[in-house]
């Protein structure tokens, strides 16, 4: 479904992605792990076209994504949420469907309420982001991304900015989506969670994919001492 071929990306002469090749199948859950600065976020940002790539190509459904075009087949949930603070929860979710897709207010509201129910925040529709907890904010952000009916949902360290107590409510929503066969790529330091939900785990370091495999391969049968050490840090 997403085919990433030999992509490279530099920021002011510093290589952050080096020749990365990756295939993501429909319905697959891909976990991206690796130390900070490995290029996980950059890879995700390239897939949603927030960053232009320098070399290689990214195809979604066999269609090459251009550097200018807007990508709505992919949705992304950010580490620091980025909800719109000036409008309430419901409006946060309906804004894009209404102004980008021209969905009527009634239909957009209906869909938004369905999504809020899904993320367990049905009663928060008229609250403002400033009135919610971090975990609730992130769940609204997930609902907002889903409102555009993306075929792939990317998560860029969705729980890194949250208290440990609030992490679970976000992870359980992601787990629910994975169960529904949503195609997901998630960069995270929550190793246990990745181990549970991922079909494929990718370990990145210094802009390269070092290894990839099933969670079992990566977490249990690991022979590479560097990766072993890294995983142990989180257990």
């Amino acid at each position, binding site marked *: 479904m997403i085919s990433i071929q030999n992509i490279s990306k530099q920021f002011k002469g510093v290589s952050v992605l080096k020749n990365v090749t990756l295939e993501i199948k429909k319905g697959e859950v891909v976990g991206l792990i690796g130390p900070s600065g490995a290029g996980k976020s950059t890879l995700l940002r390239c897939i949603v076209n927030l960053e232009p790539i320098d070399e290689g190509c990214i195809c979604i459904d066999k269609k090459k994504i251009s550097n200018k075009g807007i990508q709505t087949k992919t949705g992304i949930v950010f580490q620091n949420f980025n909800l719109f603070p000036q409008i309430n929860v419901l409006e946060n979710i309906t804004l894009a469907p209404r102004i*980008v897709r021209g969905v009527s207010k009634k239909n957009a509201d209906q869909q938004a309420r369905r999504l809020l129910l899904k993320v367990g925040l049905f009663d928060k529709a008229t609250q403002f982001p400033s009135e919610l907890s971090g975990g609730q904010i992130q769940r609204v952000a997930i609902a907002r991304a889903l409102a555009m009916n993306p075929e792939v949902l990317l998560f860029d360290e969705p729980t890194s900015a949250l208290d440990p107590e609030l992490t679970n409510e976000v992870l359980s929503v992601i787990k629910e989506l994975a169960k529904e066969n949503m195609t997901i790529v998630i960069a995270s330091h929550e190793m246990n969670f990745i181990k549970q939900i991922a079909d494929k785990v990718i370990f990145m370091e210094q802009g390269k994919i070092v290894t990839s495999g099933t969670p079992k391969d990566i977490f249990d049968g690991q022979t590479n001492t560097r990766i072993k050490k890294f995983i142990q840090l989180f257990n």
Partner: protein
Amino acid sequence: MNTLGSTIAYLLQGGLVTFSVWIVTIVCSLPLAALVAYVRKMNNRAVNTILGIYTTVIRGTPLLFQLIFVYFGLPIILKVQISPFVAASIAFVNSWTIYMSEIIRGSIDGIDKGQYEAGRVLGMNYSQIMLNIVFPQALVTAIPSLCNQAIEAIWGTSLLSTIGMDDVLKSARVILMRDFSVQPFIIAGGIYLLFNGAVVLLFKKIEERTSRFKVQYAK
């Protein structure tokens, strides 16, 4: 004999002149300023250079200079007669558009990059992002500074007499000259203060109404 009542009535007439120039200034400048800020954010080099120079000229010359230039100079250049009220409106709206556009531009710069990115990944184009996400937030952050500008616009109206308009201050001076009493000045001062107070109150109310989304992720 002049009673206190007729003095007040006369000064309030002046107050109406002051108020009408002020309201025209605020009502016209605010949307124009937003427009100028928007255009400058499009980063067209030629347009920005021209607007940059124009901003320097407007901010770098006194309001009195501009007022006199518009009233006495513009008719010579354009070969048309303009009334003092029109001249004052042009000069004030022009200046306040520039002042306020700089404030709004500053607040736009203060909006987190993540807000633009969130809009982009949801498929919005640049103008949709600006209109629906960035501007509403920038205007709210700008409220206190815009309030200051609105107050300075009141002070600015005290220059209106130089182009022959009878504003509050001029009216007070007329009565002072005639009656040789400071009473009209005290009343004029009271009118200014009330006017100011109303403006501050108005902006406070607007600020309160937006307080629910002003604090970003405070928890």
